[in-house]
């Protein structure tokens, strides 16, 4: 890590997470203040104010992100901003410090940019909700935490954001807490995230104890140094555990189960947290620590494998969803799998590329879906939609743009990012070829479910109850962000055009200083440079598959729900298990959750109450009973007293005689 740190005295980077945090505090205070007021108070006055504050905070944060970006672009070294010591551990000290480097700068741009759009959208979407100010407080807090996550110079700071976004996710999933299933989903999200966090913690401890520091710069330089000779297994273990943390946050097998349930939150939340930002933090972490992971090839392979598996499993699940947001949720999991697949083959910048484009088009898809749901009076079942193109053209248009990007139709942003990953996998050779194959299949699946969704929602017959539902287009506040995002989804590809286009890979070059150390370590392992021809062929294959599957799926579902129902009647069990993510969630319930709860009640009643407490109380009762017996000796029967005293005297005399002897 030769990118040295130039300036440490600057505190303005703190404004990037700080402003949303202030926004959160302000809007939160507004919410709390609103609670204390009489019920019939005019809340309307405070409402736009809350949204405005939040949006303003986001805009300012975005502005400062750009400032950071420009500073770096101007050739400045990484900007380190240390405020004060946080935790002195005795051996080293953890500080509150932020670092703007090429990676974090990019992430802040994405987070604040997409976040800003979603905020604007949410101002329209949440209109009329009683928890309006609260919602924006949470949303702003989330952004602050996410920025903390990506900006922190050390792992502990990242962990603050890491858990902070988890918390906000919890709060937002359970935003409509009156429905207990939403509250349960929130709890599940938090707990599953915590499993990952626990692994993260352990990984962090390994690094802290072996390397003596938790600053990224120190870890990355140390790790790459250690990588040269025999790698200590401890570092591999650390990498594995950190990946465990990433699994939790980025919803990878085996910890992905919370994400589909997380759709219980309001749709902007799904867009922001469960598609664009928080779930990508796992990817961010691996890239941030790329020398460490590069130095642990086994872990890297595992990451690739898990990524591929997740991509496939989630993709197939997405095929059978009837819930609009369900499809998107599983799609997100699947795409995250893609990113991990990329990480697994050492294509760090490709993963980030996909992360960025995914943030664009998935946010778009969610927001558009939100617009649909909004227009359909909270209806989410695709089987009860159809033909919405006519009712909400703007939404339809933007949704199709997103779908095209997601499914990787040629020249869309997703096309480039996905194909870059596939190309890298193919270039890796050996085991990576399997990953490539899985990726390709998943690409086909992706195209299939995406266009199934498009067809079911916007085309074909109108299957909803026309008396009850009057689909309508959303307001400008909501559609404007859609268009911005659509633009980004379509054109995002220019960030990373393939080499064969002979255009600069903007993103790759931008990230080069960050991923270089990792790449350097990996360089020894494989040097996958593809010939231009191969790359052309791969691009072509990708385009063909995407187009073909998209076409087939669109036409199969255009007519309506028949093909879905046909499949369900033909393979009912398969359909069910597919729609439930291969039944993994159910398996967790049966194999993990229930045993733990049973064990808890068993420990509580059988072990603790019966055994330990029983022993304590038993001791008490035993003493009581013994006391009864002892007490009963003094019965008032003088004969017995005499016998005891005489006998005892004799015994004492005998003992004494024995002692004397």
């Amino acid at each position, binding site marked *: 890590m030769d990118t040295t740190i130039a300036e440490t005295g600057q505190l303005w980077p703190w404004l990037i997470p700080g402003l949303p945090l202030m926004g959160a505090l302000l809007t939160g205070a507004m919410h709390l203040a609103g609670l204390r007021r009489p019920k019939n108070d005019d809340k309307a006055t405070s409402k736009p104010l809350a949204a405005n504050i939040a949006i303003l905070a986001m805009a300012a944060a975005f502005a400062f992100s750009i400032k950071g970006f420009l500073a770096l672009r101007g050739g400045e070294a990484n900007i380190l901003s240390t405020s004060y010591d946080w935790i002195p551990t005795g051996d080293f000290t953890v500080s509150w410090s932020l670092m703007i480097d090429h990676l974090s700068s990019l992430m802040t741009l994405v987070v604040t940019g997409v976040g800003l759009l979603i905020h604007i959208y949410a101002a329209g979407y949440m209109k009329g909700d009683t928890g309006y100010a609260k919602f924006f407080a949470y949303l702003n807090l989330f952004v602050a935490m996410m920025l903390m996550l990506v900006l922190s110079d050390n792992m502990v700071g990242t962990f603050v954001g890491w858990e902070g976004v988890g918390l906000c996710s919890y709060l937002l999933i359970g935003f409509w807490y009156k429905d207990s299933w939403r509250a349960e989903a929130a709890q599940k999200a938090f707990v599953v995230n915590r499993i990952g966090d626990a692994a993260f913690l352990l990984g962090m401890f390994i690094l802290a104890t072996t390397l003596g520091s938790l600053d990224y710069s120190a870890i990355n330089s140390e790790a790459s140094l250690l990588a040269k000779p025999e790698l200590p297994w401890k570092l591999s273990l650390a990498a594995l555990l950190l990946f465990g943390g990433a699994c939790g946050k980025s919803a990878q097998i085996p910890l992905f189960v919370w994400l589909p349930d997380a759709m219980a939150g309001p749709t902007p939340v799904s867009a922001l947290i469960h598609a664009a930002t928080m779930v990508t933090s796992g990817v961010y972490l691996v890239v941030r620590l790329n020398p460490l992971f590069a130095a642990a090839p086994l872990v890297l392979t595992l990451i690739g494998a898990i990524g591929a598996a997740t991509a496939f499993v989630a993709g197939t699940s997405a095929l059978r969803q009837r819930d609009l947001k369900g499809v998107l949720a599983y799609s997100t999991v699947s795409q995250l799998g893609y990113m991990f697949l990329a990480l697994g083959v050492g294509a760090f910048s490709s993963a980030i590329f996909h992360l960025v484009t995914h943030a664009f088009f998935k946010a778009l898809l969610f927001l558009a879906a939100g617009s649909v749901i909004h227009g359909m009076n909270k209806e989410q079942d695709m089987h009860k939609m159809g033909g919405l193109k006519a009712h909400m053209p703007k939404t339809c248009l933007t949704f199709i743009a997103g779908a095209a990007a997601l499914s990787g139709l040629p020249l869309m942003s997703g096309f480039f990012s996905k194909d870059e990953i596939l190309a890298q996998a193919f270039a890796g050779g050996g085991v990576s070829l399997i990953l490539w194959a899985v990726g390709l299949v998943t690409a086909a699946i992706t195209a299939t479910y995406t266009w199934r969704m498009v067809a079911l929602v916007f085309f074909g017959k109108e299957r909803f109850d026309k008396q009850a539902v009057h689909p309508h287009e959303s307001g400008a506040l909501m559609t404007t962000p859609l268009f911005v995002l659509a633009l980004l989804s379509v054109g995002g590809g220019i960030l990373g055009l393939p080499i064969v286009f002979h255009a600069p890979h903007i993103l790759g070059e931008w990230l080069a200083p960050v991923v270089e150390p990792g790449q350097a370590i990996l360089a020894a392992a494989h040097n996958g440079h593809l010939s231009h021809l191969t790359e052309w062929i791969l691009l072509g294959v990708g385009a063909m598959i995407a187009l073909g599957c998209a076409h087939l799926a669109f036409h199969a579902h255009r007519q309506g729900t028949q093909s879905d129902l046909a499949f369900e009647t033909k393979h009912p069990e398969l359909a069910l298990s597919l729609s439930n993510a291969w039944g993994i969630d159910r398996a967790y319930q049966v194999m993990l959750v229930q045993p733990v709860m049973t064990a808890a009640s068993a420990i509580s009643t059988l072990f603790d109450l019966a055994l330990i407490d029983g022993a304590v109380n038993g001791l008490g009762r035993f003493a009581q009973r013994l006391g009864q017996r002892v007490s009963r000796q003094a019965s008032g029967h003088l*004969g*017995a007293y005499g*016998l005891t005293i*005489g*006998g005892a*005297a*004799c015994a004492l005399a*005998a003992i004494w005689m024995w002692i004397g002897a």
Partner: protein
Amino acid sequence: MVDLLFYVAAAVSVLCALGVVVSANPVQSVMMLLGSFTGIALIYLLAGFQFLAAIQILVYGGAIMVLFLFVVMLLNQGDPVALAREQGVLHKEQLAGGLAVAGSALAVLLVAVARTDLPRPIFGYLWPEGGLDPLLGMAQAMFGPYVLAFEGASVLLLATAVGVMTLAKRQRNKPVAAASTSEEASA
């Protein structure tokens, strides 16, 4: 001859003591007790303690026995009705226990006696020089070092008189004067 007399006296006192314990009639027990005390007094005499033999007879025979007899009579304990009411002589429920404890007491004492080698005086257990009796020595000790015990005993007698009087008095009639009673005289 003198020694033989000791064994006779010892036998008498032991037999009488047994009689005290097993007699059904308390009056008989009192008489047996008197016999036992007399035997012991004889042993005192044989051992050279004439004064002690005398007070043994005087105090035990003359006072304590009379006291016992008096109470037995007072409470009609010789009466057949009373005898019947007391449900047998011995406490059958704790016969075994009592015998065991008494027996073990005897055993412990006898073992202790048997296993201890008391030094034997060269000239046997004959009277020492300087008189027939340790009376002078006793007097000197009582008014010398043991004066505290002696005076204590006198206080004890006084307290006993008060206590016994209080106990034996019937309730509700409060006499002011503390006349000496038969109990006190016995001391």
